[in-house]
Every structure is written in C-alpha cells, then in structure tokens.
C-alpha cells in the first residue's frame, strides 16, 4: 500500500515542481518583455557578439553535415522515382523549414544556453546579483533582457549561416554520392525553393531563441548551492531547453500550417 502511495507522492511532487517551473518561466518571460524598452544597449551588443562568435563554428559544422545527411536520406527515394531533378528540393526543403532550425536550436542551447545558465548561476552563488540590486541596478535591465534580445537575434542570424552551410554540405554530398554538379544543384534549388521556405525556418529560429533565452535565464537565476548547484542548474537548463524547442516547434508548425 505504501508503495502505491509512494508512487502517487512522487508523481505529485514532480507535477508540482513542473507547474512551479512553468509558472516561473512565464513570470520571467513577462518581466523580460516589460524590461525590453529600457534595456542596456551596451550589454546587448556585447552579448550578441559573444553568442554569435561562440556558436558560429559549431553551427556551421553541424549544418554542413546535416545537409549531407538529408541528401543521403532523400537519394534512395529520388533514385527510385527516377526524379533526380527533385533531389535539391527534397534535401533542402525539410532542412530549411524544419531540421535546420531544430538542430541549430539544439546546438545553440547546448553551447550558448548552457553557458548562460552557468554564468548567471555563478553570479548568483557569488552574490554578484545581490550586489547589483544594492547598486540600484535592476538585474533584468543589465543582464536578462539584453541576453534575451541577443539570443533571438543571434538564432536568426546563425540560422542564415547554418542554412548556407547546409546547402554547401548538401551540394558536396550530392556531387560525391550522386554525381550532381554543384551549379546544377543551385539552379534546381533556385527554381524549387521559395523565400517562404527560408522565412518560415527563420521565424521558427526566432521563437526557439526566445525559448532558450527564457529557460536558460530562469535556471541560472534559480541556482543555489555553490559549484555543484551551478552544474545542476545547467543540467536542468539544457533538458528544459530541448523540451521547449520541441514544444515551440509544434506550436509554430501547427499555427503556420506548414
């Protein structure tokens, strides 16, 4: 009997924790929105630079391989239907709209999001955030809101970079595995891929950036317990970011109608 009670208690605890986190995330998001008009521009630029340079190489690399992977997955179908013309479209369409933003989001969350949580968490446990409040500086002005805007902006920029990388990776792989010349690939792509495909991917990335920003800042600010606590916060942050990417993706996809 206590076994069942134990399970119910555990589920209840998890549910309450989940609800508390969800509420906390919502509150943080609203507070960020209210703070945006008076955020610190200097910090915004610094953050944007840091986030961009930190993750550009890793995202470029990921995108290159992703492009290649998508070509290799599309190739069997295209060959069977004897519709080689469709290869660029088949490979790029899903990449630009879906796979690209999601993988770039996961990479961004892993690199920038977790770093952000670690930085904020360290500041909390070393009382730097308290010091700011005592200096009559609102941590949201100086730290949170700039990082939020920077992450949204950088996710969009990095997705553009990533899309380019994916196309290059796709071209190289198409040449190597299917003998399609690169200029041919580009030609067919330009015919078949529309701006709307690229744009919808970028919009998604923007939303992912917002989600990653809110999640990473939330867990950073809620850190407690020294170096070990910071590690725990980063752990929770990346997991929650991954879930938020997926949920936001679903919401945006459903609303935009593909």
């Amino acid at each position: 009997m206590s076994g069942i009670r134990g399970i119910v208690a555990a589920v209840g605890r998890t549910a309450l924790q989940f609800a508390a986190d969800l509420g906390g995330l919502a509150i943080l998001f609203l507070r960020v929105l209210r703070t945006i008009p008076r955020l610190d521009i200097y910090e915004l630029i610094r953050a944007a630079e840091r986030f961009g340079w930190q993750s550009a190489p890793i995202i470029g690399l990921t995108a290159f391989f992703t492009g290649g992977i998508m070509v290799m997955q599309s190739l069997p179908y295209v060959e069977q239907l004897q519709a080689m013309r469709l290869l660029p479209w088949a490979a790029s369409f899903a990449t630009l709209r879906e796979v690209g933003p999601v993988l770039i989001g996961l990479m961004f969350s892993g690199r920038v999001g977790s770093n952000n949580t670690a930085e904020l968490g360290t500041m909390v446990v070393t009382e730097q955030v308290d010091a700011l409040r005592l200096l009559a500086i609102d941590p949201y002005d100086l730290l949170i809101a700039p990082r939020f805007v920077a992450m949204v902006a950088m996710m969009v920029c990095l997705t553009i970079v990533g899309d380019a990388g994916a196309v290059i990776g796709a071209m190289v792989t198409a040449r190597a595995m299917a003998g399609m010349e690169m200029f041919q690939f580009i030609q067919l792509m330009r015919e078949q891929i529309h701006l709307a495909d690229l744009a919808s991917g970028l919009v998604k990335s923007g939303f992912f950036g917002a989600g990653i920003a809110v999640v990473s800042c939330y867990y950073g600010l809620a850190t407690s317990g020294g170096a070990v606590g910071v590690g725990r916060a980063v752990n929770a942050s990346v997991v929650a970011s991954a879930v938020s990417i997926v949920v936001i993706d679903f919401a945006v996809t459903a609303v935009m109608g593909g």
Partner: protein
Amino acid sequence: MNAVIRRIARESRDFTALVIQAYVLLFRLRMRRAVVVRQAFELGNRSVVFIATTMSFIGLIMVLQSGYQAGRLIGDYSLLGPGYIQLLVREFAPTIGAMMLATRIGAGIAAELGSMTVTEQIDALRLCGAEPVEELVVPRLAACLVMVPALIILAGLFAEIAGMFAARLVFNVPFATFFELRLLTSGDVIVGAVKAMLFGAVIPLVSAFAGLSATRGSEGVGQATTRAVIHTSISIIFLDFAVNVLLYPVYAR
C-alpha cells in the same frame, strides 16, 4: 593558434586513452552488477518521460510538415506512412533521439562526475586504491550500451504513434494505411541499430570525459556540462553522417 592545436591534440590523446581503458575493462567484465543496474535505472528509466514527450512532439511535427507538403504537391497521402516509418527507423529516431538523450543523460553524467571532480572526491577515490574509470565510467558505459538503444526504440515507437494520430486527426489517414511496413527493409533496421549502438557508446564516454576534466572554481562544473552536451551532439551528427556514407549501399538497395 598553436596553443589551441596543442590543447586539442592533448585532449584527443587523453580521450582516446579513456575509451581504450573503458572498453578493455568492459570486455573483461570488470564491473559491479549492482552499480550497473542502478546506473541503468538512473539513466534509462528516468529518461522515459523525457523521451516520450519530446519524440511525440517531433513525430507530430514531422507528419504535419510532410502531410501539408504531400497534400499540396501530390494530393495523395498513401506514401506518407510508409516513408515516415522508414525515415524514422534509419535516421530520425536514432539521431534526434540521441541528441535528446545527449542533453538528458550526457549533461547528467557530466554534472555528476564534474561535481565529484571539483569537490576532490575523485582524488579521494584514487587514494583509496580505486580506479575512477573502473568505478565510475565503465558502469555508465555498460548501462548506456543497453539503455540508449532501448530508449531509441522507445523514441521511435512514440514518434510513430504520435505520427499515426496526427495523420488520422489532421489528414484523415486511417491507422492501418499509415502504419505500413512495405517500404521498410532489413537494411534500414541494420543502419538504425548500428547508429543506436554507436550513440550508446559515444554519449557516456564523451560526457564522462568532460566531467572528469572539470576545472576548479564555481564555473568548472557548468562548463564541463556545456562541453559534454556540445561535444556529444557534434559527435552524434558526425557519426550519423559517416554511417550514412559508409552504409549507403546497405539501405539504398
């Protein structure tokens, strides 16, 4: 630039040493069963809800996207199901599932071992005559080699079920039409299995390495966790690419 190259070389060498040591111990079955089982529970069972949630959403998204396109371009949804499950088995379940597990399991291992490193528990372990790789890394490796593929199968299952519901509710494709295995070949299954097993090894090894190389100071554990997630993710993508290239003849018929 020179310093960066030397650091990468040094880390690669240390990592390779760790991998070799771990596998040697693994094959000699040098591990305590109880520890492995507990790790399997921690890493495996505790990740089920996470995988179920994320992969269900992924399934919904993928079917929605493909469905919208199929409707617009061909007007026929009969290929939706068979194509979807094929891609799921040989590509998306292993890769996206592993990327998700990299955040859950990988960050967890790195945070745990990283905390032990900065609080000098690892040093204390050595002083007691125990070998950290044997005590800490090998059990996690063994547990992941079993649990990660199992979770990936689960991931595929949830994505498939979610996809079936999406197809039924949004595009009116009956379950039976959607769940069609006629395109699925043994080649697809082999590729998926190879990827799952590879990723099952990569996640614990890369994350444990990151955790054990955590630096002192309040940032050390956080940075180790970041490194674990990033290095694991990039390894997964790269290995996926490599397997796709090498095993192309297997699944392209």
